[in-house]
C-alpha cells in the first residue's frame, strides 16, 4: 500500500538489528521500507515490490552474495536499472566476475559503502539518488 509519491526502498541484509535501525531512519524520512534477510529472499522480494532503490549488504549466505544479487537485479529489464547502494563490512576487491562477458572489476552498483554507515548519512545518500 504505497502512498503516491513515496519511494519504495528494499533493504537486503542478514543483520536484523542493522536493518531495523536503517528502517527506522528511512521511514522517519517518508520512505516506504521493505526488508529481506537473504539474497534468495531479496530477489523474490525485489520482483514482488519493484522498489525504487535497493540497499544491499555484501556478505550474506555466501561471502560475496551481494555481488551476485546486484548482477541479478541489473539483469532484470527496466526495473533493474534503479540505484543500488552496496554496503560491505570488509573492503574486498574479490572476484567481481559473474559471467565471462562481464568486464573484470566491473561492479554494477551505484554506490559502495564501508560499514559502519551512519543511518543519517545513508538517508542523505538515498535522498540524493532518488530526488535527482
Amino acid at each position: 500500500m504505497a502512498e503516491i509519491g513515496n519511494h519504495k526502498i528494499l533493504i537486503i541484509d542478514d543483520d536484523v538489528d542493522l536493518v531495523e535501525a536503517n528502517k527506522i531512519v528511512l521511514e522517519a524520512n517518508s520512505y516506504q521500507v521493505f526488508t529481506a534477510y537473504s539474497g534468495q529472499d531479496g530477489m523474490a522480494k525485489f520482483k514482488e515490490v519493484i522498489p525504487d532503490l535497493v540497499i544491499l549488504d555484501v556478505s550474506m549466505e555466501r561471502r560475496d552474495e551481494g555481488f551476485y544479487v546486484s548482477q541479478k537485479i541489473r539483469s532484470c529489464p527496466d526495473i533493474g536499472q534503479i540505484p543500488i547502494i552496496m554496503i560491505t563490512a570488509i573492503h574486498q576487491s574479490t572476484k567481481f566476475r559473474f559471467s565471462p562477458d562481464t568486464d573484470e572489476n566491473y561492479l554494477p552498483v551505484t554506490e559502495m559503502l564501508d560499514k559502519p554507515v551512519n543511518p543519517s548519512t545513508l538517508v542523505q545518500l538515498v535522498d540524493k539518488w532518488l530526488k535527482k
Partner: protein
Amino acid sequence: MAEKIRRIKYFFGYQTIQKFKHCLSAKMIFWISAVTMITLTGYFYIHLQDTQEHFNMLIKDEAYLASDIIKRSIRQEMLLDARVDLQRTVSDITGNDEIIKIRLIEEGIIKIASDEHEIGQLIDKKAEGCNDCHKQNHPPKFTSDRNYRIFNDADGKLVVGMVNPIYNEKECYHCHGEEKKILGVLDVIISLERVEAYIHTDQNRAILFLIFTFILLSTTVGLLIRYFIAHPISKLIEGTTMITAGNLDHQIPIDPEDEIGDLARSFNVMSLRLKTSRQEIENWNRELEGRVKLATAQLASANKELEIANEKLKESDKKKSEIVMVVAHDIRAPLAAIKSCLQVVLAGYLKNDPLKEREMLKRVEARIEDQLTFVKNLLDFSRIAESCGEMVHTDLHNIIWKVSDLMSDLAKTKKMSIKVLEQDGHLPLLADEDLLVRALTNLVGNAIKYNPEGSKIWIDSQTSNGNINIAIKDNGVGIPQDEVPNIFEVMFRGRNAKRQKEHGAGLGLSIVKQVVEIHQGKIRVESKEKEGTSFFISLPRAEN
C-alpha cells in the same frame, strides 16, 4: 721414381731396425754371436799371424840352408872358375819347382844366373826384392848372415829370396886378390807356393769353421733363447694381454722350474687375486647401487612428504588468512549494527516511542553479549586446541545431568524439551569434566538455537564393546547433505544456522570436535533436512 725407391728402402730399413730393437731374441742372438764371433775371429787371426811368423822362421832357415848348400856345392866350380859347369849346375838346381832362381852377383852385375837372359844385367837395387835393404844407396852391412826377403816375383808368386855373401877366402886370392872382403853374393829365390797354399788352406778352414760356428751358434742360441726365454715371455705377454682385456680366469701355462716359471706362477696367483678383488668390487658396487637406489627412493619419498607438508602449510596459511578475514567481518559487522542502533537512538528518532527505544537498546545489549560470547569462544577454542585436558575418573551420568541442568532453562524459552535417556549401570570414563560438559552444552545449545520452537531434543547414553556412546538428537531443521562434511570446520556456519538469525562464530562444533579428540574419542553426525540432526560421540571406557 728414384725418390720413391729411396723412400721405400729407407722405410724398410727403418722397419727392420725397429723390429730388431723390439725383439729380445734377436738382440740376444746378435750380441752373443757378435761377441763370440769377434773373439773367435780375433783368436784365429792371431793364430794365423803366429803361424805365418813361424813359417817365416822356418822358411828363413830352410832358405838359408838351401842357399848354403848351393853355395857349398858350387864352391869347387867357382874355385876352378869353371863357368860353364857352374852355369849348368845352377840351371840343374833350379830345375825343380822349389828353387826358382839362382844368381851369382859380383859388383852389381849378374855373372851367373839360372835364367840365362839375366846374365850380364845390372841389378836393379830398387826392385822389389832388393829395395828393402838397398834403400840407401851404399851397400848395406850384412848385419847377420841371414838376409832374406819375402816378396811376389814377376809372375806374382810368393817367393823368398836369400842373399848369401861369398866371402873372400885364401883359396880365392889367386883370382880375386886380397882386398875385397866379399867377392859377391849368391841370391837364391825359393818358391813359397806350398807354404802359401798351406796357409791359404788354413785360412779357408778357419773361415769355414768360423762360418759354421756362427751358424751353429746363432741357431742353437736362438733356439735355446726361444725355448727358455722368448716363448715363455710371449706366453706371459699373452697372459697379461688377456688379463688386461678383462679375462681374469686365464692361467699362464708355463711350468719350468726357473725364474720365468716363478714369474708365471706368481702372475697366475696375481691374476686369481685380481679376479677375487674384482668380484668383491662388483659385489660391493652392486650393494652400493642398491643402497643408492634405496637412498634415492627414500629421498624421493621424503621429498614427496615435504611437498605434501608444504601444500598443507600453504593451505593452512590460506585458511588462516581466511579466518582473519572472517573474524574481522564477524567483529566489524556486529559493531556496525550496534553503532547504527545507538546512532538512531542518539539522533532522537525514537524519542517519541520509548518502548521502541528500549527495544533498540536491548538489541544492542544482546549484540554486545553475542560479541562477548564470540570472543570467549574464540579464546576457548584457542586454549582448548592446545590443552590436553585434566583427566579424572568420573561417570558419564554426572556429566549428562550437569548439561541438562544448564540447558533446561534456555530450552524452555523456546518451548523445547530435553529428554535424557540412559542405560542403567555405570559409565566410567577418564575425562576432563569441564571440557566434556562444555562440548555437550555446545551441541545442546546448537539444537536449541537453530531449531524452531517446540522441537524436541534427546540425550542418549549407553555402553558397548568397551566404548561409551553419547547421542544428541533433535527433530529440527537438519543440516544440508553438502554441508555435513564441513560442519566441524573452524568458522563454518551452515545455511540453516544463518537463516535463524542467530549469531554464532562457527566455532561451537570445532570446539566439540577438539574436546572429543582430547578424550581419545570419535564423533560423527547424521542429518536429514526438515527431519532432524543426530550427533554420535564414542569415548573409550575406563578400566577400573
